[in-house]
């Protein structure tokens, strides 16, 4: 059902955890839908210096979370905003059609975190 890459990211997810002094946090999803993704960012000079995630969800949800953190690390915020859910799924060698819902959260969580950072900057 899942590609080898998905299983690899599910089994050995990259960048799992929290960043206690994160510059920004983004969370999407709902427990009643069966998946929540939370992304923590450490940002320096508009560049993602560190990124971590926490996910409640199925295999695809965990794998896409892991993949999006790898794709976003060391990117500028503008570059990271260009990462789409489709790109994450492609980077994982595709996902089963019924799993597109889960993959539609990973990039959204990243974008929500960046949005959170920019709101904070405006406020500061």
């Amino acid at each position, binding site marked *: 059902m*899942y590609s080898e890459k998905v*299983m690899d990211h*599910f*089994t050995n*997810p990259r960048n*799992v955890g929290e960043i206690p002094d994160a510059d920004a946090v983004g*969370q*999407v*999803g*709902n*427990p*009643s*839908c*069966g*998946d*929540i*993704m*939370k992304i923590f960012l450490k940002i320096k000079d508009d560049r993602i210096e560190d990124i971590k995630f*926490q*996910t*409640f*969800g*199925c*295999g*695809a*949800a*965990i794998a896409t979370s892991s993949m999006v953190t790898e794709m976003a690390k060391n990117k500028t915020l503008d570059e990271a905003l260009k990462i789409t859910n489709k790109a994450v799924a492609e980077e994982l060698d595709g996902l089963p059609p*019924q*799993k597109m*819902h*889960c993959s*539609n*959260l990973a990039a*959204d969580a990243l974008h929500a975190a960046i949005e959170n950072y920019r709101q904070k900057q405006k406020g500061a």
Partner: protein
Amino acid sequence: MRRVYFDHAATTPVDPEVAELVMKYMTESYGNPSSVHSFGREVKKPLEYAREQVRKAIGAAHVGEIAFCSGGTEAANMALRGAAYANRQKGNHIITTAVEHHCVLTTCEQLAKEGFEVTVLPVDQYGRISVEDVANALTDQTILVSIMHANNEVGTIMPIAEIGKMLKSQERRIIFHTDAVQSIGKLPVDVDQLNVDMLTFSGHKIYGPKGIGVMYLRRGTWWQPIMYGGGQERRRRPGTENAPAIIGLGRAVEMAVANREEEAEKLTKLRDKLVDRVLSSIPNSRLNGHPTERLPGHASFCFEFVEGESMLLSLDMQGIAISSGSACTSGSLEPSHVLLAMGIPKEIAHGSLRVTLGKYNTEEEVDYFVDNLIPIVERLRKMSPLTGGGACTPCACAGCDQSKK
């Protein structure tokens, strides 16, 4: 890699003796049982013997009350639609429960579209229904009641005999069907003791072949076929009989009933050990379904803060086969309709796991399962944002909006 099969409610391995019998009637004695020549005759006889084996297994009075079809789903379709159509002039009300298998629920939905009035009764926290619930739902239009004997997802046993007795005591004739797919070979199944007019089950849950099912129809019950063709199965289910599978099912059900008590005792012990170990070693876990009124080898759990499919995948990588009622394993966004009907919150229902033991399982396999499950749940919880009790934002995705409808 080591492999452990803990998904016997999904299907079972075919018993070697049954497989040999099936093979014989595929390769050696392959005639069409309707043929007059010797090739046909040598199949007709064992086919009718299988019908007798089924009759005996469920305590039916006559072999003519047994019809074979393609499986549990077709049997339920035949039972419900056949009884509904044939009794339409007497009334249009059908009663069932919220925790039935989809083969009953979806058939009832279809009958509702065709103009029947369908009452879907809610269940209690254990997934059980009471005799009073059914009695209170009866109207002067009720023609049919369909309630499963034991639930496939949580293992809860329904008080079928008592409901049947109450229905029999009514002035009007109400046809009572029970789906016995999960209970046959595990609980005593006797059509007279259960007070049912129709009973359905399949071969592949009792170490028999897939693609074969049984509909019991009590003599004198108004019913009409839903398929038309030749005269096979007394016109109840036309089409050339799947003789190898029927003969296999006959032997399988005979063995299942003969070994039932011994098997149930062994599986109950294994299951109780498994449940005790899981609940005592994994915090925030619960057993779904009734604590005692449940199928012998059946355990269903919910683990908070983790999602079922990720547990299933992790166990699969250790060679352990179980199933889950999470949305991600059902192909929809909704978790199991059974768990939701029992009042389990959606976020917890997503973390469900079903373990169903069978005759070849051992205590050592139970330990292997629990030893693997503990670190898997721990690992996934560490990854989960829910463990910390974080606040949850409404889901903005289009998919979830659909699921709210």
